[in-house]
């Protein structure tokens, strides 16, 4: 019997494996995807981003998606037929291999949204059962163990830190970044260098970033990116079983007793452990618990509260862009603009918290970055003319050449809270099954109108920077469309066992030996991408499990 069995090897699972295996415990990780090392990763745009080589094919595994309107009616989409894909990365290390590593901590007020900003009608906002101070040492640990690079600058939204600076210096930035800094100063905006989960130099037994130009969506061939695989799983001796799709957890009334999994050939296996840690990413973790219902837990494992799957959240917000064109730049500036590989790495958090018309709002973060280098995608965005008609032949040739060689798009991404509501939750479909014969997850989606209001506010502020920079074709799009890769909730943590699935240590209220360590625990998401918080919280849970295992010895 293992001491610990971890289900899913991504950002939520890997810190537990690292900590407990390095503390001498017998740890097994069950991962449905394959294992890769640095030497396996490459920059094949077709394979990685167009044929989705790191995610399951939708004709084998999919979701059912119900998109809700305010009146409670919804439209049902079959993931396979519609192509609506909620998979993010099935491989050892999970989607943390493919992330861009824009890393922001939550801020103290994110832990007490209800107390600080009050109730919002139609939203299930609650305070967290822990505070920023509880998590701070673990944010700090992530900086050092996973590796976060950056530079601390004084600004009014800076959260308290126990270490003065980041352990790794800022990554190199593109020449155009300094134009941004000037524009912000003129606008009186406080900008910050974006912290990144990327090593700017060789450290921790990994190579520094070589500015490969293809970071987000691609595996890192140097080990610089702080994936759970490169930073943690490759640095411990936890046993990793790949091609292991966990479809059921068996339990009695107090404990999980076994995890059952299928290989891709449909062969069934099981694992016994003292402690089980679930980290299959938010939607799949809820799905597995719902599919594990038994006579003790007829509504889903650990679901005596009826809260399992509820209050699913994403990162709300949207994107905007503007284009630098050669005509407005000197030759030197043109050269600077076209430097590839180097990062833009600027963020605005000035309106993480703001007042509008006398009302206090929780705002968010805006990250600025160049348009992704994916060439085929950039070309396909040019095939229509301004009237919406397809171009081809010489007209397309001339447009492509001009746009791709004499201009470059700067984009921004807005992150604000996706308010938890009754209409946004995970279920399982009673009829539809995946290739393993297991009921697929149902994703019920609803974006609260408040999210759009805040997103608009942040986008309008951000657009001003693009205007100041002299960009052309400035536009933005704030919408309720969920980013599938930035997902949380479904197994809220809380003090009250009748209103939450997990306790404050992310152990199921109902079971003595089941923990959930991905973003499922988050009752509210904060206004940043989640991964730094997932890592930090998972290190926190690892400490709790360590104590619990030592007591059992």
């Amino acid at each position, binding site marked *: 019997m293992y001491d610990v069995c971890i289900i899913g090897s991504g950002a939520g699972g890997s810190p537990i494996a690292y900590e407990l295996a390095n503390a001498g415990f017998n740890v097994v990780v069950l991962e449905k995807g394959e294992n890769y090392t640095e030497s396996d990763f490459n920059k*094949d745009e077709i394979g990685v981003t167009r044929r989705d080589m790191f995610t399951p094919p939708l004709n084998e595994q999919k979701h059912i998606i119900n998109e809700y309107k305010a009146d409670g009616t919804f439209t049902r989409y079959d993931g396979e*037929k519609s192509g609506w894909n909620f998979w993010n990365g099935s491989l050892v290390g999970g989607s943390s291999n493919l992330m861009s590593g824009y890393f922001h901590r939550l801020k103290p007020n994110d832990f007490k949204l209800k107390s600080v900003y009050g109730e919002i009608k139609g939203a299930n906002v609650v305070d967290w059962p822990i505070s920023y101070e509880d998590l701070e040492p673990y944010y700090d640990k992530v900086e050092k163990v996973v590796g976060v690079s950056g530079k601390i600058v004084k600004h009014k939204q800076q959260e308290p830190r126990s270490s003065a600076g980041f352990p790794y210096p800022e990554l190199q930035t593109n020449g155009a970044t300094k134009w941004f800094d000037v524009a912000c100063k003129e606008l009186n905006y406080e900008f910050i260098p974006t912290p990144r989960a990327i090593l700017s130099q060789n450290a921790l037994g990994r190579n520094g970033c070589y500015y490969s130009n293809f970071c987000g969506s691609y595996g890192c061939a140097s080990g610089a990116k702080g994936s759970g695989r490169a930073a943690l799983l490759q640095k411990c001796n936890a046993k990793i079983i790949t091609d292991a799709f966990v479809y059921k957890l068996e339990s009695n009334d107090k404990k999980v007793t076994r995890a059952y999994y299928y290989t891709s050939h449909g062969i069934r296996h099981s694992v016994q452990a003292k402690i089980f840690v679930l980290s299959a990413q938010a939607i799949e973790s809820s799905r597995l618990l719902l599919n594990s219902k038994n006579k003790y837990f007829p509504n889903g494992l650990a679901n005596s509260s009826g809260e399992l799957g509820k209050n699913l959240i994403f990162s709300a917000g949207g994107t905007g862009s503007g284009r630098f064109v050669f005509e407005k730049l000197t030759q030197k500036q043109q050269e600077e603009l076209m430097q590839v590989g180097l990062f833009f790495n600027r963020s605005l958090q000035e309106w993480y918290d703001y007042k509008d018309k006398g009302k206090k709002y929780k705002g968010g973060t805006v990250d600025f970055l160049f348009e992704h*280098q994916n*060439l085929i995608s950039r070309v396909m965005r040019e095939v229509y003319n301004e009237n919406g008609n397809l171009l081809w*032949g010489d007209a397309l040739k001339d447009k492509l*050449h001009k746009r*791709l060689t004499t201009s470059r798009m700067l984009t921004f991404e807005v992150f604000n809270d996706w308010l938890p509501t009754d209409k946004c939750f995970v279920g399982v479909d009673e009829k539809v099954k995946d290739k393993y014969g297991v009921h697929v997850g149902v994703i019920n989606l609803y974006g609260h109108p408040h999210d759009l209001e805040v997103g608009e506010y942040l986008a309008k502020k951000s657009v001003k920077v693009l205007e100041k920079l002299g960009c052309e074709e400035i536009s933005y799009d704030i919408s309720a469309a969920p980013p599938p890769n930035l997902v949380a909730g479904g197994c809220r943590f809380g003090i009250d066992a009748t209103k939450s699935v997990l306790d404050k240590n992310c152990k199921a209220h109902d079971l003595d030996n089941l923990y959930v360590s991905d973003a499922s625990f988050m009752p509210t998401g904060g206004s940043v991408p989640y991964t730094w918080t997932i890592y930090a919280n998972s290190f926190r849970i690892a400490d709790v499990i360590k104590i619990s295992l030592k007591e059992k010895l």
Partner: protein
Amino acid sequence: MIVNLRFRRTFLKAGFLSSAVFLMDGCSLFGITTPIDTISVMHKDLFPEARHLGITTNSYMYIVFSHPRISEKDKIFLKNGVKWLNEEALKMYKRTYTKLSSPQRQKVLEYVTQIEWGDSFVYDVMNYMFEAMLGDPVYGGNNHEAGWKWLNFQGGQPRPKKAFL
């Protein structure tokens, strides 16, 4: 059971590109073409620059039609698009698309891209054509990175050693 299903799908796909598409007008048979013939000519019409750069894009369509990651729905749509494009060609000029003169083919393209299916179909054809032209040379197009050089694009390192099929 899973393995069996895979085999069946592969079997279905094999003949897709070269199998005949029968073109009917009401109840009479007007002509026969194959998707590969029509799509090859479309590539020339849509982006002649590829050939000037020494890049062959049409053979990449064999990869597209046999790729397990491209859905049957998308493949059937491409094949139907070939059929509908040819039927429009027949209606307009009484000959299949490949047998028309270049200006006539341009007229057919102009006409169909104003219709919803035609716009989506031509977009899809271009999408795969640009994958061939601007994807990694390991896929058989983008001869000596000519497509990348044309757009001053450096590609990302490391490059794939083999195509993801």
